[in-house]
């Protein structure tokens, strides 16, 4: 176990943690604010990954540029899904618990629909492409450039989003809606717009993560579900509805996952679950959550 090995593990953990943090923040917006436990979250990651892949392989568009096209497109799909499906469920459900249950089931439907359209379009094979796959040497160990770019982009996106939440009017409205939807509405927040925006923005973050994942890992149309599970665990780890908590939760999971993966790749999912089980048993409100 040399110094270089530790550098490798820490760096890999940060990259994975950055990705998971993005995914978790996206889900946190959808569940914490819009109250939709969106199990099709991973499918939006997959869509982002495949859109990047297709634009790069077939049209030769630079992945970093293609984000300008895929991001808004996926935002729009999710916004539309919220407008047509979840808004209607919100109006017809008598209680918030009924809404959560029904929207969960509806998002299962969405998972089936998106995944199978992708399978019809792209086929079930594993795909990948090479972009920025060179490497640089630093402190006696090599780093892949695409991983450095992924980490940097995840960091920039995370910080930009946090500043957006803190310092803009819409960000304030989102925080208000997360705390108490009805009161926020009484204070003049257009709740329809904010919820739809949050759902879309959550999918946008998923697309961004998918774009980064497609640069580093191989992709398949069925890749979404494990990411959804990780996102859910990260969100619970940080405390339901706590956006900063989700970010930290994602980072922790990524680092732990990478450490376990260095010893036995098959066990990383098991490690997430053990964290999750302990969390649910000992501190269900999450590390940053308020007492229920």
């Amino acid at each position: 176990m040399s110094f270089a090995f530790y550098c490798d593990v820490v760096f890999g953990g940060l990259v994975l943690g950055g990705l998971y943090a993005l995914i978790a923040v996206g889900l946190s917006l959808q569940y914490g604010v819009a109250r939709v436990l969106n199990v099709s979250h991973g499918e939006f990651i997959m869509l982002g990954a495949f859109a990047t892949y297709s634009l790069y392989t077939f049209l030769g568009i630079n992945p970093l540029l293609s984000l300008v096209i895929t991001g808004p497109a996926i935002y729009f799909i999710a916004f539309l899904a919220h407008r047509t499906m979840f808004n209607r469920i919100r109006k017809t459900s008598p209680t918030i618990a009924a809404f959560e249950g029904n929207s969960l089931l509806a998002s299962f439907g969405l998972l089936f629909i998106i995944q199978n359209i992708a399978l019809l379009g792209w086929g079930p094979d594993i795909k990948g492409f090479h972009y920025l796959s060179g490497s640089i040497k630093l402190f006696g160990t090599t780093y892949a450039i695409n991983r450095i770019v992924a980490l940097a982009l995840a960091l920039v996106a995370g910080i930009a989003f946090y500043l957006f939440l803190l310092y803009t009017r819409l960000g304030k409205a989102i925080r208000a809606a997360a705390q108490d939807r009805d009161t926020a509405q009484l204070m003049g927040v257009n709740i329809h717009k904010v919820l739809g925006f949050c759902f879309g923005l959550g999918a946008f973050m998923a697309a961004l993560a998918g774009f980064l994942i497609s640069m580093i890992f191989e992709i398949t149309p069925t890749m979404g579900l494990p990411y959804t599970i990780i996102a859910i665990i990260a969100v619970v780890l940080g405390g339901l509805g706590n956006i900063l908590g989700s970010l930290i939760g994602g980072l922790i999971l990524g680092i732990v996952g990478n450490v376990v993966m260095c010893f036995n790749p098959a066990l990383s999912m098991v490690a997430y679950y053990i964290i999750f089980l302990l969390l649910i048993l000992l501190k269900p409100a999450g590390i940053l959550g308020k007492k229920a």
Partner: protein
Amino acid sequence: MNNFPVSRYLTNIRILALFSGGVLAAAILPLFMDPFTTISATNVFIYIVITLSWALFSGPTRYISIATAAFFGIGIYTSALAGELLPFPLVVCLGGFVSLILALLVGLSTLRLKGMYFTIFTFGLSELIRHSVLWWEVVMTGTVGRWVVSVEPVPVYYTMLIILVVTISFCFFIGRSRYGLALRSVGQSEEAADHMGVNVTAVKINVFAISAFFAGATGSTMATRWTYIDPSIAFNPLFSFMPVLMATFGGIGSITGQIIGATVLTLLADLLLTEFPYYYMLIYGVILVAVILFLPGGIMGIWESIRKRRHKELHENT
């Protein structure tokens, strides 16, 4: 008012007659069916049982469980491990019991928590077990798959029929018992049920465990038809999603609805699966969304609203 108990008595007799007629027909059917029909009928029975077992707990309590695949898969693995040691009926019971014990453990650790946490946990339970089993097989036994002792289609058909009859009777009687009432009260308001003296946690855990028994026994039975299994076959997440979809489609609150929902969707799957595997899952997604948006009560919801309208018209005319 006086004829109320009599009419209820008549309804019960009608249900009993229909039910025993159906069972009798199912029992003599293999004598006239070709092997293919026997196998697809067995398939329908499987989905009815796992749909009923899912709705037995998740229907009245509204705790959405997505762990059916875990219990089903545990049954399958029990069959693979014990198939050579024990006679077939014992293997089936054992598969049910192992699942029941797993469900007890899961229930004890998570059912004290409120609905969404439970759903989140069950969502990945079968994935956790799948990964653990895979790791165990690769590291400890050095293989991925296992062989299961094979059993002929006709005995499997009868075993599934027995499990089906037991499941339907159990769901029917628990729905009309004090226990079923307690379960429904938990779904309506857990706090109020607690104050009325219902032991909320015990009721939830017990019914959850029993519902897992049926799924496990079904898994054990089915494993003998597949002969080869591996973790991704045994813990296929589809077995978790299908009961949710089928029960929602048929009507979560009604046993008849669940049976109809499972039968229709299984036959539809048989029809489409071999020709258009992706279209069929796509169609299921659309059905799930459409039912939730437009038919909150499922197929039975339509039936109920027609009956209510007719009832209303009858009263307006007299």
